[in-house]
């Protein structure tokens, strides 16, 4: 879990993460909340209806039972007339004039039935029939046909005596005019005094009283209410064509008193109440849609509002994510560019937030890298070029030519010792300068080389050149760049002898103690007493030294070359500086760090 969570947070892009975060924090909780609250609400409506409906049904069922009981109890009205009871007790006459007695009895009884039962007190009674000792007494409000005593008494065994029965219309052939729905209530007329039965009374009752009771139960427009017996046979239904049909699902009902619901095919809520008297069941059915009709509108509106809200906030969060990731993506692209070597990039973002800061830093970084690369590159280039020229200078062809000519003159003159010495000096110089393995050499060797050069020049110029070297430094211990003194000396001789007959060169090497702003090191001062140089000329040379750009082939190239090498090797403030006064001579000062040879070797 933790792994997938972590991999989820490392694997996916910011836009995805932000959208998921948005969904998790907004859309899902809100839709869940909405869904749950709607569900809870409908459920509470269902529960409320489910709770109060059975109570109402129970009341209605009780009313119906009470009505039925009332109708059944009208049998007692028979006992009000001793005459009728007497007729029923005595049974059909057997002896003389049986026919007239029988008809007279019938007249008496039916007259009584008409007066008592078909009066306005009992408007729901359609007709009343008495079966007594082989006789039938009958009286009805409507014309009828198909009254069959056998079908009514069928199934009424001796044990059923005294038990009330209700006969549904489909069980008999009795039909009233106009086909009103009716019930037959059957009750024995007991002879309580003699403990026998006087007969059976059948009362036909229209079902309209059930309709009246159910009408009082205002269940809502879509509700359906019906009455059925235990087997699911519909006793009463507002749609009279369904009376007598069977309701197949009655057997599936999970209870007989209470409420329940089903989800398919339609969501419906049921309420049932079963009569303890006759097992009839009053059923109430309403589609849940009908109950929640009012909330349905609210639900639709909420869904629309929610979808709009989700769309708007989703778009906003997408925009924010895009705004947030777009510079990052651009940065990433630019980084790829930089990676490929293109440093000429610029991330143009003005915002002051973290992203803007990042872009700013990125720009600064790229700029710095660019500068560093350029610096490094140019420095390298310059050094290589300088070294190349230095190499060239080490074996300056003019010098070689002049020296060889001097040797040649000396040979012609037969100055053997002089020749030998010059050749030896030249050889040593060549060996020193051709040794490319080392860039740093001990100062002593460099001094030797400078002196070798001066000695050869001395042979050439004889008394026109004078020099003096003074070293106050442990010259063997400290190192220096190779061939830095020779070009300076060359320069001094050249300019020193240009307009004068004689030049004197002084070279002093001293230890330079660290002072304020200066790290210390070794100072080599080369002074000549030549003509010096004009202020303009001096400024020009100084400018040349200050210029770190490409070294040009110039009159003072030698000085610039040395300066450039020292500076690029050791950095400021090391290097070369020039002092000069017209007519009085020039002083070149070389400053290098005190570089112990052990460190160089290492």
């Amino acid at each position, binding site marked *: 879990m933790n792994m997938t969570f972590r991999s989820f947070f490392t694997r996916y892009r910011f836009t995805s993460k932000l959208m998921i975060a948005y969904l998790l924090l907004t859309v899902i909780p809100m839709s869940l909340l909405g869904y749950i609250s709607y569900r809870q609400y409908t459920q509470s409506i269902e529960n409320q209806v*489910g709770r109060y409906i059975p109570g109402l049904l*129970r009341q209605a069922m009780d009313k119906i039972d009470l009505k039925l009981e009332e109708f059944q109890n009208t049998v007692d009205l028979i006992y009000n007339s001793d005459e009728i009871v007497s007729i029923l007790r005595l049974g059909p006459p057997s002896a003389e004039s049986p026919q007239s007695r029988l008809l007279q009895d019938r007249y008496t009884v039916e007259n009584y039935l008409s007066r008592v039962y078909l009066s306005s007190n009992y408007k729901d009674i359609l007709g009343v029939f008495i079966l007594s000792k082989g006789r039938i007494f009958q009286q009805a409000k409507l014309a009828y046909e198909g009254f069959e005593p056998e079908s009514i008494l069928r199934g009424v065994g001796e044990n059923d005596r005294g038990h009330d029965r209700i006969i549904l219309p489909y069980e008999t052939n009795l039909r009233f005019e106009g086909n009103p729905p009716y019930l037959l209530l059957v009750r024995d007329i007991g002879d*309580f*005094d003699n403990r026998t039965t006087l007969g059976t009374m059948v009362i036909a009752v229209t079902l309209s009283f059930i309709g009246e009771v159910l009408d009082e139960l205002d269940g809502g427009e879509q509700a359906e209410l019906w009455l059925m017996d235990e087997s699911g046979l519909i006793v009463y239904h507002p749609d009279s064509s369904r009376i007598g049909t069977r309701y197949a699902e009655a057997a599936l009902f*999970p209870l007989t008193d209470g409420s*329940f619901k089903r*989800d398919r095919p339609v969501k419906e809520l049921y309420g049932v109440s079963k009569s303890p008297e006759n097992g009839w069941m009053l059923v109430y059915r309403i589609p849940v849609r009908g109950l929640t009709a009012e909330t349905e509108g609210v639900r639709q509106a909420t869904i629309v509002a929610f979808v709009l809200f989700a769309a708007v906030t989703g778009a906003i969060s997408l925009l924010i994510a895009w705004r947030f990731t777009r510079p990052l993506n651009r940065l990433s692209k630019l980084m790829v560019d930089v*990676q490929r070597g293109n440093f000429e990039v610029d991330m143009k973002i003005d915002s002051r937030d973290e992203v803007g800061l990042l872009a700013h830093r990125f720009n600064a970084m790229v700029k710095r890298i660019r500068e560093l690369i350029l610096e490094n590159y140019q420095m390298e280039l310059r050094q290589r070029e300088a070294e190349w020229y230095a190499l060239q200078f080490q074996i300056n062809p003019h010098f070689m030519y002049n020296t060889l000519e001097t040797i040649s003159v000396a040979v012609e003159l037969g100055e053997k010792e002089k020749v030998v010495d010059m050749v030896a000096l030249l050889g040593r110089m060549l060996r020193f300068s051709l040794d490319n393995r080392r860039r740093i050499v001990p100062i002593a060797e460099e001094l030797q080389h400078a002196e070798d050069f001066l000695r050869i020049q001395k042979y050439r110029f004889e008394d026109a050149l004078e020099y003096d070297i003074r070293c106050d430094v442990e010259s063997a211990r400290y190192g220096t760049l190779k061939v830095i003194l020779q070009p300076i000396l060359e320069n001094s001789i050249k300019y020193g002898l240009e307009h004068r007959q004689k030049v004197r060169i002084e070279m002093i090497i001293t230890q330079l103690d660290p002072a304020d702003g200066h790290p210390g090191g070794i100072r080599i001062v080369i002074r000549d007493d030549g003509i010096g140089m004009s202020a303009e000329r001096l400024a020009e040379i100084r400018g040349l030294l200050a210029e770190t750009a490409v070294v040009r082939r110039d009159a003072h190239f030698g000085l610039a070359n040395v300066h450039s090498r020292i500076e690029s090797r050791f950095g400021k403030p090391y290097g070369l500086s020039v002092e000069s006064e017209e007519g009085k001579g020039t002083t070149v000062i070389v400053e290098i760090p005190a570089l112990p040879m052990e460190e160089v070797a290492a």
Partner: protein
Amino acid sequence: MRARLEGRIGRSRTGRRPGRFLWLLPLAALLIASGCNASGGTPFKVIHEVKAKSEEQADPAAEPQRFKVALVSKIATIHYFQVAEDGAREAAADLGVELISTGPEVADGPHQEATIRALIDQGVHAIAVAANDPVALLPVLREAREKGILVMTWDSDTVPEARTLFVNQVDGETLGRRQMDLLASLLEERGEFAILTGSNTAANLNEWVHWIKVQQQEYYPNMKLVDIVANGEDMERAYMLAKELLIRHPDLDGIIGIGSISPPGAARAVKELGKTGQVKVVGVSTPNLMREYLKEGAAQIVTLWSPKKLGYLTVYMARELLLGNMPYDGQRVPKVGNIRVKDDMVIMGEPLDFTKDNVDEYDF
């Protein structure tokens, strides 16, 4: 270097693919969650169930007890109580009650007390007594009640403290006054009459006699009660006593027979002494005992209720009391009709008059 770089870009592109649709997953889960409902085997889900009180009582396991009810008559041998027993048996069969019907050989307190004591030992749940003596039975009935037996009276009451309920066949005042009225109308409110009663200890008979006297004193000054004789619920004795009465009082115009064997005894005596029609006989007796005498004219009118019905009602009430249900005024008792209730007395209904014209309608 270049290849590595492209490789990295390529990977990041493919890595983006699943992420694009990942956010749909919770949404899909939501849809699935909302669309699915747990469904059971039946299509219906109960919301609320009403627990009916009647179910608890109707539960057959809750009523394993079969009540044992004892019906004690004044005397076992006479027709009236035998018929009452028939009604009681019918009720016992209807209601699932075990009935023990019994009575003393002699209609008096001590004999009846012995009968009751025997019933206490049998462990009955209820005893319904038609008391021969209102006071004499008090100790034994108290004893029965102390043992948790329900004690009630029927037909003839005891003192109220001896029983829980009295099932009375008729209102005693109504019956007594009516007997006087019937005889007065037959005698045109003049002449001498005597009362032949079944017992001078039975409370119901004494009450009726009392109201006969009251009615005579209030309305019939020209009539005279000359004698009251008790026969001990003995048919032969009733006949003998009636004969003696007729001889002792030669001017006697009428006899009121109280207790079911009194009118037949009186009618037989009148008939045998050739005084049919001359001495009027009324009283309280059963149709079957009186049918012949009524038709011959030896007796004119007898009054009664249905003893069958009384037996039935007594057993019904015993069971109701054992179930803890007290009767209420106007209650409709199945196969009996509506009853009246006065305090701790149930009144079954109005008395029936039997004459030679309607006596054939009745069979008890």
